[in-house]
């Protein structure tokens, strides 16, 4: 198998880092990113606040009690998005294969075969770090490994700052003494099962055969076996290859179980999805709504149309159907996600009879006009109003 070189960049506490870039007075004090609402939860926090016991998802009141000296700022997702795009632009010259990983501020770069172009991988790591630090003021952790898994574990053990390099062939030795909790692919139930049989280090679990591991962890033991041995064949995927998928999320400033608020948020998400689809001349058949409740439980349900749709009206209908399929509890909702699946190019079927589907024609025109305004002046300049 060809030797691979993967760099994992992790800008720790990404949103805090971005806020500090924009206001240098924030650098010397703990910072909590959370909406300014009575029942808001922590979106992100600085290392100092973390050391005081603040965690993501914790109630802001509790977080403030734990870290009274912290300054609290509202989250600005659009700023963070801009910042990560800037980072991607800075690292693209080093590799066309840049994957934006789950979570903020994580990037994987496939540097395989780039030795002649940019020099040895550690040099590339340093150069990327210097570029980001000099150009953007962001100081990422970086680690190099023969695959994404090893690179990620390398970053985890040096957090909150530093770098780590693992060479090909050293994967097992590198992982063996580490606690199991550092293994990113390990599911919570697998972790507790391995702990139950007295295993606490990766090396101890790696000493089990595939068969023995399947006894303890059941299904998916093969994947875990590979992970325990430092094997991760998953490629670094550039965004263009990650499949066409539209996902939109709305965090409620204050969790709520009021129907009018939830409805309005879902309709707004459907509008965003419609705008994004129409811009790319696409349509979708399936709308998935995912609700995250305040107690951490989540639920998702879908609504499927016979034909692909792209107009706000149709998308809204599907979204509301999916919403009421999954909204069965009275616990407050913290965030709502809307995902469009089964994406197809738009098909315009001409009608034989002019009088048919006048409403549809009107809706198309309305959507076109609204989209134009959004394009020219931004989405925040025009909102749809909804009535009960």
């Amino acid at each position, binding site marked *: 198998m060809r030797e691979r070189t993967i760099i994992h960049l992790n800008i720790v506490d990404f949103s805090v880092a971005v806020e500090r870039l924009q206001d240098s007075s924030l650098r010397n004090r703990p910072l909590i990113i959370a909406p300014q609402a009575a*029942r808001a939860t922590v979106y992100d926090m600085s290392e100092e606040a973390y050391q005081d016991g603040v965690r993501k998802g914790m109630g802001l009141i509790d977080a403030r009690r734990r870290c009274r000296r912290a300054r609290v700022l509202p989250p600005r997702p659009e700023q963070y998005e801009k910042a990560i795009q800037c980072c991607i632009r800075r690292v693209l010259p080093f590799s066309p294969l840049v994957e934006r990983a789950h979570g903020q501020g994580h990037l994987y770069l496939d540097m395989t075969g780039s030795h002649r172009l940019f020099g040895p991988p550690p040099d590339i790591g340093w150069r990327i770090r210097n570029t980001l630090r000099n150009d953007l003021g962001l100081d990422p952790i970086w680690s190099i490994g023969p695959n994404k898994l090893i690179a990620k574990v390398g970053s985890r053990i040096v957090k909150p700052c530093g770098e780590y390099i693992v060479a090909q062939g050293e994967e097992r*030795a590198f992982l063996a*003494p580490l606690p199991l909790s550092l293994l990113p692919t390990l599911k919570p139930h697998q972790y507790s099962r391995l702990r139950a049989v007295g295993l606490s280090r990766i*090396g101890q679990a790696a000493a089990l055969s595939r068969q023995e591991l399947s006894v303890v962890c*059941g299904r998916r033991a093969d994947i875990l076996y590979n992970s325990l041995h430092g094997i991760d064949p998953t490629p670094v995927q550039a965004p263009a290859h990650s499949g066409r998928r539209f996902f939109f999320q709305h965090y409620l400033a204050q969790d709520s179980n009021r129907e009018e608020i939830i409805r309005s948020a879902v309709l707004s998400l459907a509008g965003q999805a419609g705008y994004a689809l129409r811009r790319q001349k696409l349509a979708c058949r399936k709308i998935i709504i995912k609700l995250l409740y305040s107690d951490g439980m989540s639920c998702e349900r879908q609504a499927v149309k016979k034909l692909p749709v792209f107009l706000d009206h149709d998308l809204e209908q599907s979204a509301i159907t999916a919403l009421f399929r999954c909204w069965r509890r*009275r616990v407050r909702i913290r965030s709502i996600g809307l995902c469009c699946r089964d994406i197809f190019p738009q098909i315009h079927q001409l009608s034989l009879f002019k009088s048919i589907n006048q409403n549809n024609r009107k809706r198309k025109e309305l959507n076109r006009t609204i989209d134009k305004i959004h394009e020219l002046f931004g989405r925040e300049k025009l909102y749809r109003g909804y009535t009960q």
Partner: protein
Amino acid sequence: MIPLGLHSHYSLLRSPTSCDALCRQARQLGYRTIGLTDINNLYGLWDFVNGCDRYAIRPIIGAELRSNGERAFFLVKSSQGYTNLCRIITGIHQDNTPLHSLPEKRLQGLVLLSDHKKLLTRWQEMELDIGAAIIGRPDQQGSELRNHARLLNIPAMIVADTYILTRNEKRTLQILRAIAGNCSLSRLPADQQMNTGKQLLSPGEYEQRYRIWPELLRNTRAIAERCEFHGPKFGLVPPPYKNLGNQDADHLLRRAALAGARQRYGSPLPKKVMKRLNHELQIIASMGFSSYFLVVRDIVRPVSRTCGRGSGAASLVAYCLAITNVCPIRHNLYFERFLNPGRTDAPDIDIDFAWDERDQVLASVFSTYKNHCAMVSNMVTMQPRKAIRETARVFGLPAAEINTITRRLSGFRFQRDTGDDLHAQLRATARLRNCSFAPPWPEILARAQELIDIPATLSVHPGGIIITPRPITDYVPVQQAAKGVPIIQWDKDGAEQAGLVKIDLLGNRSLGVIRDALIQVRATGVHIDEHSWRPEEDAKTRQLVKKGLTMGCFYIESPAMRILQKKAGRGDFEHLVIHSSIIRPAANDCIRTYLRRLHGEKWQPLHPLIADILSETYGIMVYQEDVSRVAVQLGFSPAQGDRLRKIMSKKDKDGQLADFRDRFFQAAAEKKLSQKEAEGIWQMMLSFAGYSFCKPHSASYARVSFQAAWLKAHYPAEFMAAVISNQGGFYSTFAYVSEARRMGLRILPPDVNRSEIAWRGHGRELQVGLMAIAGLSETTRNRILQERNMEGDVKKFASLLDFLQRVHPADDEARALIHAGALDGLVEKPANRSQMLYQLAQWQQSRSLAINRLFPPSAVPPPALPGQHQVERLRNEYRVLGFLCHTHPICLFDQQRQRLGTILARDLDKFAGSREKIPFLGWPITAKIVGTKTGQPMEFLTFEDETGQVECTLFPRTYQRHCHLLHTGAPLLLTGTVEQDFGALSFTVTHIAPVPVTGKRHKEKPDYHQSSETRDTIA
């Protein structure tokens, strides 16, 4: 206008309005007659009747009946109608009887109002007294109904159909509907929003509203006038005796009592006995309660072990009939406390049965008196904790967030008369100091406050049962409780007001403890003759009681009681009777006076007139009947004295007590008592009557206490096994295990080859039962025993695989067994629980694979897994069992104890009275929050280590500062001084801190340079 179809909060979760508020509001609006029709029930009948009486309103009794989508208002015209209504309501609860199928004879004596056209047509054919109910407003629907009424030639009338009194209650009503519908306010269905027409209006507003149809007002008045029934009047309804034959009950009772007396006292009967027996029998006969005694005797007779409780134990007749077990003559028990000729309410005989036998007793009563008996119900009202929890759920808060508030509300009571709202009172509560109450909590608390005391559900009274001469549904509607027994629709106060005589058949854990301990003792070959058993005369037992070493013993095991025993230093029966009644809230001054007098202080009675009555209790009022007896001594009749005693024991006594106070002081003046003396006696009566027990009750319980103490003194292992197995004691299993260890018993861990379901004690060993393993189902427990004792042969489990294949436990059950150590005996020693868990997983996997295989896969030896770390092993054991078998968990903190220089519990006496501040590391066992005289909270806690228990006191200031650290279940580092009072030690805590963690916590980082070698080592 006469408002009919009103609803109170007894239409459960449909109205926030109490009957009293309804009557008061109706009176203020100018109504003289109102009709209450709660939905499918008569729960509020007596509250409504009393409220109408209070505000001089004529009540119309009725109910709104809903069944199978039909709805009608049934108003009672006569006693026959009332009986019919009770039967109809019972039928609806039993089998959801459709209203249209009710037979004609069942509908006599009632006025039937409905907006259901088909129902009206059917009832018109039967020529019943009916009317068309125009509900709400004169709208299109009402117009159609009015026309239909004209066609049928029946009157149409107004049914107010109200649920709230003021507009402000609308929101409360919506919250109630959201609670009932398990939804949020914004998703409350439209028909539950209660938007319009649900509020009680004034007569003028109704007249204005219906002025276009004036005949409706006339018809409504006419109907109301026909309803002349204003509440049932049964008189006293004692249970009937079935086996009378040709004899009368009085004669039969006399014969039975005399026969029983001869057995108790021998023949011929002593004069004293004969005289009292005649006196009692005469009163019983004159009041018509002979059959009552015979019925109770028949209930008790088949049961081996009972304990009469309450005032009934003062009756010699009850003692002779073997209903009670304490001789009223020997212990000077006052019969008039139980029954006197002037008593107008029904007395009740309360009997305790072993907790696990009581359901059989109840079943036998139900089968003997089929359709003539039911249990008394208990109306469960919303208390602050439930009101807050339910409202917060409606507001959509997550359970964890709600629990942070509600779990600290144990024992919290909302004080309406302070002027502070619920939010303010919670903020002032020390335990909730760390709660922020950020929005929406203020709104939740404001709404929850409106829900407090609103009935939520009907449950079963702990033991009250009613037996009636006619079918019970002639008296009161009956419905089925969730646990499957029939219950009447009134609580004990309602039953008492109706005259239905209640028998209390209660469950008592300690009777089960004594029974099981005796069975174990007998199994060892020792025979104890219970007829000649006199535990109160046994020196070893008296010594145990005297020293307060009575943990596990019925009624005398609480820390307060054991401290009192230690301070008193008396182990005899008579003093124990006093102690079990004198222990009560806010009686500290009296207890100290008692102890001083007990230890020789000279004292004078409050007045010579009452000296004799209180001589045996050192001049202090201890028992409830002391109130009646003192009152009688001052010139009250026994009935008046008893009435005074009863009023004093009620919570809302102020109104009724004023009159008695005047009479008391007048009587005292007539007997030449000074104002000061009279005031002194009155204050003592007030302080004691509210909480104290009657002497017969205390004496009856003291006998059971002595039996338990005797078993603990002579057969500790058998006794402790029975205490833990019967559960429900004052302490947790953890505390009882510690006590057993302190008593020198060895705790044998659970073992599938040795353990029974219950705990077993023998000699100096206590074998943990399978019941101690959390998560092990009853089915699996039984299967383990069944597999082990196949056809009488003991076939032990040979290996782990053998056990799994024979018992087939669920995965979590098998894990629990492994963690508890119950399977350690099936593997090679030392048992490696990691490997056992692996073998379990292997067996589970092979079992699922075996479905598609001809032969099950053979067992492969487990890999070499590291054993569980000791702390982790003990943590698992504690999680599953709730205690550790081989050690006290506090021993795991030895390092901290050495470092902090803490003192062990057994050494605390060396510091008594020294005022030196001592550190003590203790494990919390029990806690009790009390209020000081000024209303400040303080707490008594019991902590323990492996050497003993320490009774700790947290005075208000310390409590305020440290209460947030308590009740976590974790051990705590206490600092304080050791006090000694009458020879008993207590620890006054001045500072509390969590136990500091030993060593430094390091972030887990490997030594990367050594990583290759580490791998080799593991491999």
